[in-house]
């Protein structure tokens, strides 16, 4: 029975090894650095690791030699010594010296990586459950960045074929120019997140209520991916980061596009929409912002996330719902979407929830009402 089990496990293991070799690329070390700091980290890790391997060879060498030679079964008689001050001093001092040797380059890179002075540009990044907001304060626009892998690829027992960048793709990536020192100001809106892009050698916690800063200077244009690296609730694993590093000209073009987009968004606050129009905008807003908790069909996840389908509040007077969507509810995961979404989007998503699934209030909430509630 035992041996059967071992065969099975062994077989599985062999299979796994085989599939590993079969795949062209598999990583067993840090990804290739694209910033100076990431390069330093890479080297520092290699130095540390080889020192450790060296010590391990000595330690294990002595240990296994002793295990092989000083065993009763080969007739070795036990000696009786039990201390030796000289050797004890030696093996206290040598590790100390090795450690000092390791600490020296480490200190230099810490000082380098923490020096965020004289940046070429600054972006404020805010973590939300479970998306990132990039605020280009100097340029005057901001946007949300959410996972773009289709739900049917990762929902429970989903069978859809997975994209190449499964779970590491977003709708609106952060864009920065190549070769520029970008300083980031990090904070969070609800819980702690961490902004991590391995190839940049940057990981910084985003602490609600505090600004922590960090910086990077990407040497090569390209698309770089990372993930939220601090447990932040149920969709912590679905909170990727994508940074596109572009040539300066392409970057400038991108900035201009973003500016005109955000101008358009502010203008139509005064427009009066049809119900159907609001519903269709709202459906999209709902899918990216609300479905994570209240679920695609508004059924919620009892008891933590209430159902919106058939909810008393959603079917009742609109003011209460506007209030909770705009301001959130303290102490729960329901955050203040007034800070995250435009007036039009809030109006649309509220309209949508009040007219989707089993809810048929027939009411259309206009952006102007939302704007008025912002006072």
């Amino acid at each position, binding site marked *: 029975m035992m041996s059967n089990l071992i065969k099975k496990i062994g077989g599985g*293991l062999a299979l*796994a090894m085989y599939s590993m070799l079969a795949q062209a*690329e*598999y*990583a067993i070390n*840090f*990804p290739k650095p694209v910033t100076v700091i990431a390069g*330093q*980290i890479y080297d520092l*890790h290699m130095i540390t690791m080889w020192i450790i391997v060296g*010590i391990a060879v000595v*330690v294990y060498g*002595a*240990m296994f030699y*002793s*295990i092989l030679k*000083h*065993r*009763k079964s080969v007739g*070795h008689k*036990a*000696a009786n010594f*039990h*201390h030796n001050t000289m050797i*004890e001093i030696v093996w*206290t001092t040598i590790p100390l010296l090795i*450690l000092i040797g*390791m*600490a020296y380059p*480490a200190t230099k*890179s*810490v000082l380098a*990586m923490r020096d965020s002075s004289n940046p070429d540009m600054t972006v404020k990044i805010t973590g939300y459950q479970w998306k990132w907001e990039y605020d280009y304060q100097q340029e005057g626009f901001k946007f949300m960045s959410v996972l773009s892998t289709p739900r049917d*690829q*990762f929902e*429970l*027992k*989903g069978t859809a074929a*997975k994209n190449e*960048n499964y*779970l590491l793709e977003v709708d609106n990536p952060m864009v920065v120019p190549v070769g520029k020192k970008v300083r980031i100001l990090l904070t969070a809106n609800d*819980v*702690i997140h*961490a902004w991590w892009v391995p190839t940049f*050698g940057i990981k910084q*916690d985003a*602490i609600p*209520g*505090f600004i922590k800063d960090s910086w990077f200077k990407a040497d090569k244009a390209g698309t770089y991916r*990372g*993930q*939220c*690296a601090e*447990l*932040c609730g*149920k969709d*912590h*694993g679905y909170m990727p980061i994508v940074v596109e590093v572009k040539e300066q000209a392409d970057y400038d073009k991108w900035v201009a596009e973003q500016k005109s987009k955000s101008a358009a968004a502010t203008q139509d606050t005064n427009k009066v929409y049809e119900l159907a129009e609001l519903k269709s905008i709202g459906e999209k807003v709902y899918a990216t912002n609300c479905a994570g908790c209240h679920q695609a069909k508004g059924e919620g996840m009892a008891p*933590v996330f209430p159902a919106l389908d058939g909810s008393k509040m959603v079917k009742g007077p609109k003011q209460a719902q506007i209030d909770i969507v705009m301001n959130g509810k303290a*102490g729960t995961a329901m955050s203040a979407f007034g800070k995250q979404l435009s007036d039009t989007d809030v109006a649309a998503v509220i309209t949508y929830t009040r007219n989707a699934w089993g809810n048929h209030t027939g009411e259309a909430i206009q952006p102007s009402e939302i704007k008025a509630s912002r006072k």
Partner: protein
Amino acid sequence: MEAVHDHGHEHHPSGIMRWVTTTNHKDIGTLYLFFSLIMFFFAGSLAMGIRAELFQPGLQFMQPNTFNQLTTMHGLIMVFGAIMPAFVGFANWQVPLMIGAPDMALPRLNNWSFWLLPMAAILLVGSFFVPGGAAAGGWTMYPPLFIQGGLSGDMTIFAVHILGISSILGSINIITTIMNMRAPGMTYMKMPLFVWTWFITAFLLVAVMPVLAGAVTMLLTDRHFDTHFFNAAGGGDPVMFQHIFWFFGHPEVYIMILPAFGIVSSIIPTFARKPLFGYASMVYATASIAILSFIVWAHHMYSVGMPTAAQLYFMYATMLIAVPTGVKVFNWIATMWEGSMTFETPMLFAIAFVALFTIGGFTGIVLAVVPVDIQLQDTYYVVAHFHYVLVSGSLFAIFAGAYYWLPKWTGHMYNETLGKWHFWLSMIGFNILFFPQHFLGLAGMPRRIPDYALQFADFNMISSIGGFMFGATQLLFVIVVIKCVRGGTKATAQVWEGADTLEWTIPSPAPYHTFATPPVIK
């Protein structure tokens, strides 16, 4: 012998009430050990759930929130329900035997320390069944995430309080026993190293468990009583919790390793048939590790954005710990050196401990280097690091100790063949389980995620296979223990040829009352 005789007249409850009301250190030690075994299986089953979900990318078995519950409860229960109680169980059995005391100094309190544990377990395990499910914010309970949770959050907080009371009372008892109950002639520097390590561990516990209690109390008031300790909007700071937690948490990890050092330091000389090398320096090294453990906590928080000077300080202090720990490793090897070794199961586990704990210690040093940790913090590299020190460290030492002393406790030899199978399968399964996780971490897989990008698929599959293998192997251990309790070759008093501490001078199984008249140590 008078005290023993007296007990004969007393009314002793039998059946279950014997165990509920017992004040005997051996009974209580047994209770601790069984409790810990049950909790180990429970928390291990949760780990099997984790590994099953991570076998492939995509969600196979559970929703992300359920996954976070498994991770959180696996961590909490392994630490507080399995590893710590197991070591207290060893202390209860062995400390009085090794110092020649008739019992623990405060036997009734001893009973209370144990019987608080099941109450905490009821709260923790029960929290899976309340609306919203168990706590899902990680065993570290960081706010504000932890504050968002439901009913189970409060159950976890109170479970931690009760566990804390249990540990504090238990440690006070151990300290008192060691300071006040040593047999005549048993000076501090003659105590077996296991007693020393527990002595120092108990100090750590008394100093840091109350701090944890304070931290979770603040969580509770932030949740329900409108305080703002961890909320910037009220002038507090979420990071403050992390400082307080890790002020407890880092000494806590040494609480889980120092008694293991003690067990291994008892076993290696026995099977090398040679006295422990550098006894005095072992004692000083243990004390140094304990003292250093109070001043390194923020190495868990390099990425929160501390001032640079603080980062550097914590890096240097953390790296220093390698020195006394190295002294221990070298002393163990020097003990084996020129010995006459045999390789019964306890020795095998002890050697595996030295080899694999050292790997875990090395990766600890890698993590201590700030820039490298910036890349590795909250990745599977950390998971690999701490399972090397906790599973092949603490847990393997527990297995080693169990095999070593089972004959003394039960009066029977365990089945050596099964023991060896248990060892080798554990050893292989363990390394398949956790070694690839180093690569996952380096390649960029965050921890605490239920689903991952495709490039992490292969190593996760290997790791899961190792996990099932390691998990299934643990059933063997249960079989060995049950068989050994029920029968087997009769054990002699000395059991192991090279054993020479006090517990080997009394018959096997150890009589219910021992050392009523203290032995005299020359």
